[in-house]
């Protein structure tokens, strides 16, 4: 186990650390609440929780600028919270209500926010990778310097369309950051059971794409790597790959008994590598915050999450006419 890095990052401000702490905690508490609502039957279908992986999106969002885009898979709640989408609208989409980001029509896996440049929420493994490169294509075409974060899993990394995309992204110098969220498992298949080239970021070399591996349980390391990637892409040098090593604590979705790994493996991660605990330690040992300060944040977050849950229960179901809307865009003129 690598030593805790509490003292190793002296020049990070208290303010920044507290910000990361808050955001990661919001995701964790939100996901715990979603799990509860699922258990109560208020959320249906598939629901993939992000617990354990919080440092990935929080670190990368800290490296992003206004107007940068993001796209991801069905495990998307954390990404939406981290890019500033309203927890109420997310939770109400999970419960399939009118107040949800897709008016209740998309659900957990399919949510979008044009305002926050969040392009989904995609249920088909790997599909978001070329979509992300296409978003980057649109920015390059328009001549701005925005970048796109295209998040995908270790399992998705074996889909052929990922490599078709790598080739074109490098060929055309597209400003896209491929973020492989390697949480060790694709459903019940561990990385070593799905490939003999387990260093996923290195596959980019075959296409001439630069990249690196990142400790995804350390939000500061993720942010630093994100800044390198963003600078590279914004400078017009083309795509960049970040393989972020992370871990999901819960099952693949709510119905996964997760028998493919031991309880000890999960517990060890929680005890030794938890991204939120790491920052908490840093805050306390560096005397950036007191226990009471952190308790106040916890309370605050709990209130936000409870408010989202209340909203998601009270928001009405969509009107029946909504069944027939949004199938085609109106032809203007």
């Amino acid at each position, binding site marked *: 186990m690598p030593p805790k890095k509490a003292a190793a990052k002296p020049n990070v401000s208290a303010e920044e650390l507290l910000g990361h702490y808050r955001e990661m905690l919001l995701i964790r508490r939100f996901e715990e609440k979603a799990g509860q609502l699922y258990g109560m039957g208020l959320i*249906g*279908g*598939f629901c993939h929780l992000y617990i354990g992986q919080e440092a990935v999106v929080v670190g990368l969002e800290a490296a992003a600028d206004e107007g940068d885009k993001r796209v991801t898979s069905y495990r998307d709640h954390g990404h939406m919270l981290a890019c500033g989408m309203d927890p109420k609208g997310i939770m109400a*989409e999970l419960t*399939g*209500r009118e107040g949800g980001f*897709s*008016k*209740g*029509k*998309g*659900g*957990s*896996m*399919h949510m979008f926010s044009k305002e926050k440049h969040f392009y989904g929420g*995609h*249920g*088909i*493994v*790997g599909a978001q990778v070329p979509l992300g490169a296409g978003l980057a294509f649109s920015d390059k075409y328009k001549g701005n310097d925005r970048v796109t974060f295209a998040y995908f899993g270790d*399992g*998705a990394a*074996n*889909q*052929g369309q990922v490599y078709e995309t790598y080739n074109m992204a490098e060929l055309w110098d597209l400003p896209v950051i491929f973020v492989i969220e390697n949480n060790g498992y*694709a*459903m*019940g*298949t561990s990385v070593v*059971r*799905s*490939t003999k080239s387990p260093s996923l970021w290195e596959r980019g070399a075959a296409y001439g794409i630069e990249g690196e591996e990142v400790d995804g349980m350390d939000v500061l390391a993720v942010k630093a790597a994100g800044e390198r990637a963003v600078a590279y892409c914004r400078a017009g040098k083309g795509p960049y790959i970040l393989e972020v090593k992370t871990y999901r604590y819960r099952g693949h979705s709510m119905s996964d008994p997760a028998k*493919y790994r031991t309880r000890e493996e999960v517990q060890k991660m929680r005890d030794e590598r938890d991204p939120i605990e790491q920052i908490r330690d840093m805050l306390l040992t560096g005397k950036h915050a007191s226990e009471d300060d952190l308790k106040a944040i916890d309370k605050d977050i709990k209130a936000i999450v409870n408010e989202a849950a209340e909203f998601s229960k009270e928001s009405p*179901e*969509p009107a*029946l006419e*909504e*069944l*027939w809307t949004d*199938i085609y865009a109106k032809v203007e003129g």
Partner: protein
Amino acid sequence: MAIEILMPALSPTMEEGTLAKWLVKEGDTVSSGDIMAEIETDKATMEFEAVDEGIIGKILIEAGTEGVKVNTPIAILVEEGEAVPSADTAAPAAKQDAPQETAPAKAPATVAAAAPVTDTTPDWGADVEVKPTTVREALRDAMAEEMRRDPDVFLMGEEVAEYQGAYKISQGLLDEFGAKRVIDTPITEHGFAGIATGAAFGGLKPIVEFMTFNFAMQAIDHIINSAAKTLYMSGGQMGAPMVFRGPNGAAARVGAQHSQCYAAWYMQVPGLKVVMPYSASDAKGLMKTAIRDPNPVIFLENEILYGKSFDVPVMDDFTIPFGKAKIERAGDDVTIVSFGIGVTYALTAAEKLAEEGINAEVINLRTLRPMDTETILASVRKTNRCVTVEEGWPQGSVGGYISNVIMQQAFDYLDAPVINCTGKDVPMPYAANLEKHALLTADEVVAACKQVTYR
């Protein structure tokens, strides 16, 4: 001997072109590969090479001539010392135009798959013992029996081995048959569908599990372009004896990208056989037939039906032939035709109708290709009315095809237009209330049956 040089077709769509320029003149010696002329096609200017050796005896079409039909003689090639034949003998009239296409042989019937004669024998004898079995167990048992019977049968797909199947259909198969024959794949549908098809070309009999048929969209190129068409393209030399299986259609609350019925899509493809079982006995008997069939079979299961229990005969080798529908319920007021989970709605509707004195006959198609149209037609000739029931979308539906068959072959028997009950013409919404409305209901089937019986 003199050889005619004909106007070449230089693109798949070219019918005529401009002979832009001759690069040889009469009396020149040419050999194979020499560029003789430039020809403008509908798409580009192409160089035209000589194939044979000889002397340009005569140029028949001047440079600059437009609209020269493909296969028109444009020059005559002669051997050393040979006289140039006259133009009319060199260009017989028949060669002036592209060869006449012979009329294609008439298709065997107006409908695609020729249907067998109505066969109403029950799936198993009255004296056979039955055992309540879930659809899930029936599918597993069928695969296990066939794997015991034929060592070339193997199963591949995501999470089929160690996880025992995402929907637990392959429970126990890894233990019995080992990792050589029960193979976990990475998430690479296009890749493993192609590999399985290649393995089938190579003589094996793969069963490919798609975690759901939504993900077969990644692989649909291999299913159709590689698996379905190769027997034809190879002139019968080789094909793909294999099964593509997995849950199809709506589950519950899984949204637009995970809730689609592909029955009508695959049913369209010559070269594929398409099965959609309803009960556990259907599932078992048809799966065994599918694995033995020397063609690619699409086997569309349903997640909601997996846990349902039905009687399955206790037999050493229970199979159900393709192209044989089952009459689930006899009646003479209206024919309800369905398949897969649609049969559930059809049977519920039939019960409700019976309470109102309407006697519905419910036909479970079981295989969509080949389709047992004889059984449908025989029933319609008796009831004079028909309602089709399916979960998929209305445009280009299975029901639309059935209506066409009935219109062509039993038009005079109809007392009302056929009604197609389908899923709503929208992507599947997530919200509970909307999903309920998007899906087909038994009440809609009841209403349609009343409409065609004018009640």
